[in-house]
């Protein structure tokens, strides 16, 4: 219980820190969005218009702490500003429209990669030196070693352009009304195949080889040999004694990986013109869309923190040593 309270306090503190840094960083940078937009028009804009822009974007000369509290209030009430790129669409709407695509595509591909990789890692370590143990690590390692955006381009070229098996871009068929109906969902899945494979292949090997190595290390532990000696069946030995311990480092890596889901695959989304938050972030940076960049970073930071909190809590279920803290030898 003490541990969980600790984790929650840590979560709140780091959330506050992330929010505050998000406030401070743009204000420490030289210039402001109004100047940036003014510069974009290369002198075709009247200097008076600059003042108008500043007012429009909400610049004022209030002291920083007033600005800070205004910022916090607006943050909580959901007023995150208007996107410059999609002016005057609120930033929250842009994120609301793109985040689910990323969560769906990258999230599902990552979870599949973790679970399949871990399961196969257990399997090949159990049959160490066998056929699959010799084949799978080098083959999957090849796909992971190749830069993932290049992988995306190759898949796009071969299966999208040359063979036309899969669509070349976007998250669903053009002009299709969005909705929870069968044609739309199947079109969505169809469009997700190539980017999904790219993301899956980009991380699968790490999960499999990581789990395999943890397993091999754990299989040499005394408690596994002792359990084997006392007659525990091979299946129970593999799951309850070896894998149950070998999975703990994987859980920690999983926390980092789900945090990366939101920010993770910017280039994959760009290559496949996928309507996710990575693509939006890319557009935002190209257009100097400060409110959108700021919002995207905040969302990423929150995602990492939430993912870590969830995994921390999960870890207490998996490892009794964490629960009691300060374990005695």
């Amino acid at each position, binding site marked *: 219980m003490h541990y969980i309270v600790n984790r929650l306090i840590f979560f709140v503190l780091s959330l506050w820190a992330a929010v505050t840094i998000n406030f401070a960083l743009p204000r420490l940078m030289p210039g402001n969005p109004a100047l940036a937009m003014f510069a974009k028009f290369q002198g075709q804009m009247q200097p008076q218009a600059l003042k108008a822009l500043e007012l429009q974007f909400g610049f004022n000369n209030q002291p920083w702490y007033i600005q800070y509290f205004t910022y916090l209030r607006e943050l909580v009430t959901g007023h995150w500003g208007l996107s410059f790129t999609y002016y005057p669409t609120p930033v929250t709407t842009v994120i609301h429209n793109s985040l689910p695509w990323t969560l769906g595509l990258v999230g599902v591909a990552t979870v599949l990669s973790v679970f399949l990789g871990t399961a196969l890692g257990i399997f090949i370590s159990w049959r160490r030196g066998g056929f699959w143990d010799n084949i799978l690590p080098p083959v999957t390692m090849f796909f992971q070693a190749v830069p993932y955006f290049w992988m995306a381009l190759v898949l796009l070229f071969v299966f999208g352009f040359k063979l036309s098996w899969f669509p070349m871009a976007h998250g669903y068929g053009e002009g299709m009304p969005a909705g929870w109906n069968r044609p739309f969902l199947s079109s969505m899945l169809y469009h997700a195949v190539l980017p999904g494979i790219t993301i899956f292949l980009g991380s699968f090997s790490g999960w499999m080889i990581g789990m395999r190595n943890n397993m091999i290390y754990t299989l040499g532990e005394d408690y596994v040999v002792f359990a084997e000696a*006392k*007659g525990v069946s091979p299946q129970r030995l593999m799951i309850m004694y070896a894998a149950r*311990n070998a999975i703990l480092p994987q859980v920690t890596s999983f926390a980092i990986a789900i945090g990366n889901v939101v920010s993770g695959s910017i280039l994959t989304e760009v290559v496949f013109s996928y309507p996710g938050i990575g693509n939006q972030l890319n557009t935002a940076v190209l257009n100097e869309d400060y409110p959108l960049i700021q919002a995207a970073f905040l969302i990423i930071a929150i995602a990492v923190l939430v993912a870590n909190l969830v995994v921390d809590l999960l870890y207490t279920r998996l490892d009794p*040593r964490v629960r009691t803290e300060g374990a005695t030898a």
Partner: protein
Amino acid sequence: MPTPSPVVLELDNVSVAYESRAGAVNAVRDVSLKVEKDSIVGLVGESGCGKSTLAYAIMRLLKANAHVTQGSIRVNNQDVYALSAKELRKFRWNEMSMVFQSAMSALNPVMMVEDQIFDVFRSHRPNMSRSDVLKRAKELLSLVRIDHKHLKSYPHELSGGMKQRIVIAIAIALEPSLVIMDEPTTALDVVVQRSILDQIKEIQREKHFAILFISHDFSLVAELASRVAVMYAGRLVENSPAYGLRNSEGHHPYTQGLMRAIPKLTADEVTIDGIPGNPPDLITLPNGCAYHPRCPFVFELCETTKPERYRTGESELECHLFASERRGSHV
């Protein structure tokens, strides 16, 4: 003469070798040993002399790079290496069990103590009811004097001594006729070591199983066991009754060295005499007697010829000093 007790463990010329890039490492060579029912036999020797390898060989738990190259290992008259994998799984723990050297790490850190005890019964007595299993687990904990509340504990919540007691409880769960104890108290402090040894003796007296007790601590083994086997560079150089170990006469020079290495706390000055030199490399053993480079009584024959096994009284020794024509001249 009482009728001889049935033999629980019988080793006949057992050799074990590890494969290595530098050649075969002969960790155990020509070891013959008998452990009778209801007795404690000690096995002593320096680190790396092959004690643990022998224990793992008896349990048929050797790593893939180690093999029994010759000889036979029989437990309750059953050749351990003639069993199929399935039979072996049933045979181990029913007939023979083992307490590991590193009891601290012999328990699964993510499983409660009770589950680790229950697993023995789940595997060997699948028809036993849950309440009977729980009852038996409580009996076992009482036997090793651990509070029943620790059934619900995780290993990290227990002290080293408690963990070792639980490992012992697991080892005797099915009342096997042979329990191999591989340095069961090495990782513990002396006080805990003493209480565990006393308990081992007490339980052994009550349950009448045989123990092969492996240790590098000569005085401890001499006190606990009825017979002591001394191992040097993979060979049993001496096998004597424990009562004969009080004075150094009539023993292998290596055994004498081990005796001298025991600190004498009653003397005015505490003196410890070690054995000069190091144990030999098991890949390239010295010619003749493996102990000759360190032996104070060495003579020409030792450097060229391997000693045979000689019997004197109740002892068996591998040393040229005990060849009948020489007996008495040096020792």
